[in-house]
């Protein structure tokens, strides 16, 4: 098998994504309007929310591929699930970093038990367990099945965790972004452009990881 970038399709996708991400960065820094009272801190919102979107997409993918793996028993779906899990976890980790960066100037403290942030933290912990199971769960043929079950458990648990945390700490400020779009239509356009460019990054990552996973499988089975 050849290297990832030796395929024209992958090369094109990578270059296209790189350009779009640069444009996105320019838009966020130079074009996006200032939001009163939040100033520069608000701009992390163009990153923070797409990160959450990517993480969600990744984990949703894990759920779907895990079910397919358990039903069809085809290792192909396990490689898909693993690729999505790793990509999703990278983004979950970034949410946990960017959240406090934003919260510090706005709320005065880096960590509050904000429901979405807390849910992400618990989900992140669950996925640490997911990778531990893959590592320590015995031979691949079995640990991959355990991981699939956990991938399902984790995603099904998320809404319950979210509702629980939401009611658990009702006094905590929740995300204020909902109203922001009303200030200036540009905010909305730039936000959606950012969402698009981050989704492209996710697609690149998953494709790259899939390629690596297939190579690894070939090597191990040889």
């Amino acid at each position, binding site marked *: 098998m050849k290297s990832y970038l030796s395929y024209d399709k992958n090369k094109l996708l990578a270059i296209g994504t790189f350009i779009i991400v640069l444009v996105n960065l320019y838009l966020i820094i130079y074009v996006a309007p200032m939001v009163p009272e939040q100033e520069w801190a608000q701009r992390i919102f163009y990153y923070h929310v797409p990160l959450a979107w990517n993480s969600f997409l990744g984990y949703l993918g894990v759920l779907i591929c895990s079910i397919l793996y*358990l039903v069809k028993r085809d290792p192909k779906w396990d490689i898909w699930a693993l690729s999505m899990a790793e990509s999703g976890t990278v983004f979950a980790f970034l949410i946990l970093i960017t959240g406090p960066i934003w919260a510090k100037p706005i709320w005065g403290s880096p960590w509050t038990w904000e429901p979405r942030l807390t849910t992400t933290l618990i989900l992140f912990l669950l996925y640490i367990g997911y990778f531990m199971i893959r590592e320590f769960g015995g031979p691949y043929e079995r640990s991959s099945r355990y991981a699939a079950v956990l991938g399902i458990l984790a995603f099904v648990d998320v809404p319950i965790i979210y509702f629980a945390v939401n009611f658990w700490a009702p006094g905590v400020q929740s995300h204020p972004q909902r109203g922001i779009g009303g200030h200036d239509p540009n905010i909305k356009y730039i936000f959606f452009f950012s969402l698009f460019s981050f989704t492209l990054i996710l697609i690149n990552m998953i494709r790259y990881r899939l390629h690596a996973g297939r190579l690894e499988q070939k090597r191990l089975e040889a």
Partner: protein
Amino acid sequence: MQLLTLIKKELRQEMRSKESIVSMTVFGVTVILLFAFAFNAAPAEFQRFLPGLIWMTYLFVSILGLLRSFASEKEMDAFAALLSSPIDRGNIFLAKLISFWIFIMGTQLLTMPLFSAFLNLKLGLNLPLLSGVFILTDWSIAAIGVMISGMGLRTRMGEVLVPVLLFPLLSPVLIGATKVTAGILKSEALADFNFWVMIILTFAVIFTLVGYLTFGSISEE
């Protein structure tokens, strides 16, 4: 029928060896005493922490019990006989769930008085409502716990995986159980915490279902 046979098997083994309930109870007593020593404050102040302490204790106790829950299957590989019998994997899961549920309730029955004795828990009139919360929460703990300890059965890292995975998966249930317990102890109106009862109930139903459906993938080698 087979489900009943399997549950009877678990209970008979427990009656013989008393492994689960005794070790869980002794450990529970230790944890409660530890809390009593560590928070050596005025008894009135305990009331605020009590619900959290109760559920932390039973989370630890459950972890200990779950680590032993498949031990008898492993010792002479009886699990292989179970898997090669004409029983649905889902029923094996349900039998383990129900028997562990009974064990943890038994442990609570034996250790709850200590909360009254050392940590000033006022059971009294709250007992019927509290029992309801315990029955429901224990079922949730057992459902998710049996799934994870089933994965630990053939894994050399089983002792690590159970505690690492149990807490995050159970977090909504533990939050809910703590809230409801606090509500009952403060004699609040039922309507104030029925949301939490719904959370625990949803969890119990969903994870019993997921466990029933996926236990084949967990139990087969």
